[in-house]
Each structure stands twice: as structure tokens, then as C-alpha cells.
């Protein structure tokens, strides 16, 4: 009787260890297979030709993805330009100004916004934003600015919720002390609260960037499909994610390998962003 329960407990423990290890296993598999398919071309053709190459014609031996790298960054920056101020403002409003009713309206609204699939954003972007840009600003409408607008909205929930958490965790005493010294609410916010919440807010921006740079469906529907570096806000472009998504279905041989190489570059960029957000900033908080 004693042995049976002890045995059962041990069994359960080891099953759970296996479950926990599965996450590592999956991570390993993902790394292994994406690198496995993506690295060979780097070795065969040379990393420089891929990362800095300007021409993408994979069936003819040109694997340059530099324009896509730049486009990905531009689109992310654009998204941040729209999403960061608006998102931060909403977060500040939520944490410092809004009453219970507004909170009950805003919080679910943001969660809902987060739940809307990216294909829906892409779709609405094509139907409404693209013509708007085409008619009022010029170009085909499939452009950097259209993509930035839609992506900016898409990363709002990320920025708002993480910034909100950062703002709310600023101790009440800070607010009280500032008010006691005669500061207005806004003065308190921008002199005391935002600086204290700085690292969390920055983390939200970086995580927003991570989301934007990894976004695929909305981007391929709105950004157009140009293989050149965009020189103006109205130029169409193709991002790293778009590169993969648009061609994976029918790519073969080296072409397909090149798409995995694109994936490797994307993976490295996102890992770098995540690292900065999680560790660089967490360390600051720990200080």
C-alpha cells in the first residue's frame, strides 16, 4: 500500500518533467529545422550576397533580401510612429484618468481589438485605407504608409496593455508626493510617473515592434509587392514575412531554401528584439 502511492507519485512527477521538457524539445526542433533548411544557402552563396543583395530573383540565382530587410524595418518604424503615441496615451488615460465606467469599456475594447485576426485587418485595409491613400495622397495605395497605419492599429493592444501594467505599478506614494508639492496631474504624470514606468513602456514599444515585424497576413494584403527599397511613403514594398508567405506554396529547390534563409534572418531579428525587451529592460527594473 505504501509502495503503490509512492510509485504513483514518482510516475506523475516524471510524466510532468517530460511535459515540461517538451517545450524545449519543440523550440529545439523549430530552430533545428529552420536553420537546417536556411543555413545551406548562406554557406553555398555567401551570407553577404543574401543579406546585402539587392536583387531577388530566386529562380535565376539572385537571393538578395536587403530590400525586404529595410522594408520590414521601415514598416515597423511606421507602425511604431502611429502605435506608440496613441497606445501610450490610451495607457495613460486608462491608468490615470479614466473612471470605472470608462475602464469597463476600454479594457474589453482593447482585448477585442487584440483578438481580431490579422487577415481581417488586411482586408479592411485593402478596401478602405488603400483607396484613401490612392485618392488623397497618390500612388497605387499599396504603400508603406498604408501598411504602417494598419500595423500601427494592430500593435495598439500590445503597447497599451504592457504600458498600462508599467504605469499602474508605479507606487501610489509617488503620485501623492507629487500632488502634495502642488503639481498638476499632467505634471505628475510626465515628471514622475512616466519616468518611473520608463522601462516597462519601452518594453511595450519593443514588443510592439516585434509584433509588427513578424506580422504577415495584413502586410501582404496591403503593402503591394515591390522588390525594391521604398523611397517614399507611397511606394509599395515587400517585407521579410511577405517574402516567405507569398512564395512558399510554389517554391522548390534553391528557391525554397532561400525562403528558409529569409526565415533565419527574420528569426534572428526577432530574437534580438525579444532579448532586448525581456532581459535588457528587466535588468534595468531589477536595478
Amino acid at each position, binding site marked *: 500500500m505504501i509502495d503503490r502511492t509512492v510509485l504513483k507519485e514518482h510516475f506523475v512527477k516524471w510524466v510532468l518533467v517530460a511535459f515540461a521538457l517538451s517545450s524545449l524539445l519543440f523550440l529545439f526542433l523549430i530552430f533545428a529545422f529552420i536553420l537546417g533548411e536556411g543555413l545551406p544557402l548562406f554557406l553555398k552563396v555567401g551570407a553577404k550576397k543574401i543579406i546585402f543583395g539587392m536583387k531577388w530573383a530566386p529562380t535565376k540565382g539572385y537571393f538578395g533580401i536587403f530590400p525586404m530587410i529595410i522594408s520590414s524595418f521601415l514598416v515597423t518604424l511606421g507602425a511604431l510612429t502611429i502605435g506608440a503615441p496613441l497606445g501610450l496615451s490610451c495607457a495613460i488615460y486608462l491608468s490615470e*484618468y479614466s473612471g470605472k465606467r470608462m475602464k469597463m469599456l*476600454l479594457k474589453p*475594447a482593447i482585448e477585442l481589438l487584440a483578438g*481580431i485576426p490579422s487577415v481581417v485587418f488586411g482586408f479592411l485595409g485593402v478596401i478602405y485605407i488603400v483607396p484613401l491613400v490612392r485618392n488623397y495622397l497618390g500612388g497605387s495605395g499599396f504603400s508603406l504608409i498604408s501598411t504602417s497605419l494598419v500595423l500601427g492599429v494592430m500593435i495598439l493592444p500590445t503597447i497599451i496593455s504592457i504600458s498600462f501594467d508599467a504605469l499602474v505599478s508605479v507606487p501610489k506614494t509617488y503620485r501623492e508626493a507629487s500632488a502634495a508639492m502642488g503639481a498638476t496631474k499632467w505634471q505628475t504624470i510626465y515628471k514622475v510617473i512616466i519616468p518611473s514606468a520608463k522601462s516597462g513602456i519601452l518594453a511595450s514599444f519593443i514588443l510592439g515592434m516585434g509584433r509588427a515585424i513578424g506580422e504577415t497576413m495584413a502586410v501582404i494584403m496591403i503593402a503591394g509587392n515591390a522588390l525594391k527599397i521604398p523611397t517614399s511613403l507611397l511606394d509599395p514594398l515587400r517585407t521579410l514575412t511577405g517574402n516567405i508567405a507569398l512564395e512558399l506554396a510554389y517554391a522548390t529547390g534553391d528557391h525554397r531554401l532561400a525562403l528558409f534563409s529569409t526565415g533565419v534572418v527574420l528569426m534572428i531579428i526577432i530574437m534580438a528584439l525579444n532579448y532586448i525587451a525581456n532581459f535588457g529592460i528587466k535588468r534595468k527594473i531589477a536595478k
Partner: protein
Amino acid sequence: MRTNPRIINTLVRWGLNAQAYFTVAILVVIIGIIFFKGFPQVNFGFILSFPQDMGRHGGIFPAIVGTIQLALLSILLATPLGVGTAIFLTEYTRESAFTKLIRFGVESLAGIPSILYGLFGFIFFVIKLRMGWSLLAGVLTLTIMILPTIIRTSEEAIRAVPRQLRIVSYSLSASKWETIKKVVLPAAMPGILTGIMLSIGRAVGETAAIIFTMGSSLRLPLSLMESGRTMAVHFYILAREGISMEKAYGTAVVLVLSILFINIIAYYIMNKTIARYS
């Protein structure tokens, strides 16, 4: 001349207020357009009939079924794995290099964008494991995608269970696993369920990872090895190929409504069981 700080304060308050309302307005507009344009499309015929002429006519039944199959099977696989991992991290170990390693794994998985999951699922499940574009490949890929969310929310929920409850259970001669099964998990259930609901919501809206693993066949997947569509994939193809704007809106309505419904259930579970325990 220094502007009166009180004026700035008021201006700022109005500005922030406006931006908050603007954000809500964006949501309202999005939902509004979808519903306004899509609702006329949706009737029982739309939901229950098969698409004809590539989706130009007919309904979206196989896409709905495909979505349900994909979501349910993924949850079925991811929940034991995820909750089990969470139980292990909270109940069976103290913070150590090992747990940090596991957490690193989980956080990394969480940070991978869906297109890379699509790439992985494609090369690993579809090609190397020879599953072809299939429901199974989609399920396995999606399971890994939603695993981090389930682990995170479950861990939070389990940690929130007061330590005293465990002590009481042990003092009543329960073993560790009996305590987990009978006291900790039931108490953590609302949090765990919320995490599951959120994951379902995410699964339903996923496209990039699904289209390269499950494929996009218009047929109803009758076995794990068959390809099929989800609503999101169907919607994407309708929109991108310009097949039918009306049907696209219709699909979008069903898609967004499903997600809304799932979110509402998640909230309901969370609030109802919080009330029960307070």
C-alpha cells in the same frame, strides 16, 4: 512666457480622452463595417452549405468544420502538455537553473511569429514527416503555437491558489498529486479555462501558420490526413483572389462573431468563478 500649467493639464486631459475614444471608435468601426456588410450574407444556408465555384457561391460549411476540428484537437493536445508543464513548474520544483531553462524555452516559443511556425510546420510535418498538407500537420503546428499561452496562464492561476489550502490538504493525509488534483487544480480552474479560451480564440484567427500546414482544400476534412480550410484561411483566399467580396464579408462576420463569443465565454468563466471564491 510660460504657459499656465493648469491650462496644459486640461488640454492634455482632453487630448488623452479623445485618443482613448478614438481607439474605441476604431474598434467600433471595424466591427461595424464587418457586421453591416457581412450580416446580409449570413443565414443558415451560408453556414450549412458547401462553397461552389471556388467560394463565389454557396456557403462556408467545410471552413467552419475545419476551424472547429483544428481548434478542438489543438486544445486537446496542448492543454495536458501546458497545464502539466505549469504544474511541474509550480509544484514540483523550486526556482533553479532547470526551471529557468524551461521558462526560456516557453518564452522563446511565445515570441516566434506565426509565419515562422508556418515555415517549421511545413518543412517538419508536411514534408519531412510526410503528412502532406493535412489537418494533422495543422493541429500539431497550432498545438505548439498555443502551448506558451496555456503554460503562462495556467502557471499564474496555479500560483494564485493560497498556500494554506495545500497545507490543509497535506495535513489531511493527502499526497502531493492528490492535493494537486483535488484542491489546487479545481481552485485554479477559472484561470486555466480562461487561458484555454484565449488560445482557442487565437487558433481560430490564425492564418499564416495554418495555410502552409493544413493547406487550403475546399473539401471537408474527413480524416486527420486530409487537407481543409479554416474560416480565416477561406476568408483570406476569397479576399486575396478577389473571388467574392460579399462572401468574404460573410465569412468575416462568422469569424469575428466566433472570436467574440469565445472571448465572452472566457470573461464569463473568469468573473463567475472569481465571485464564487471571494
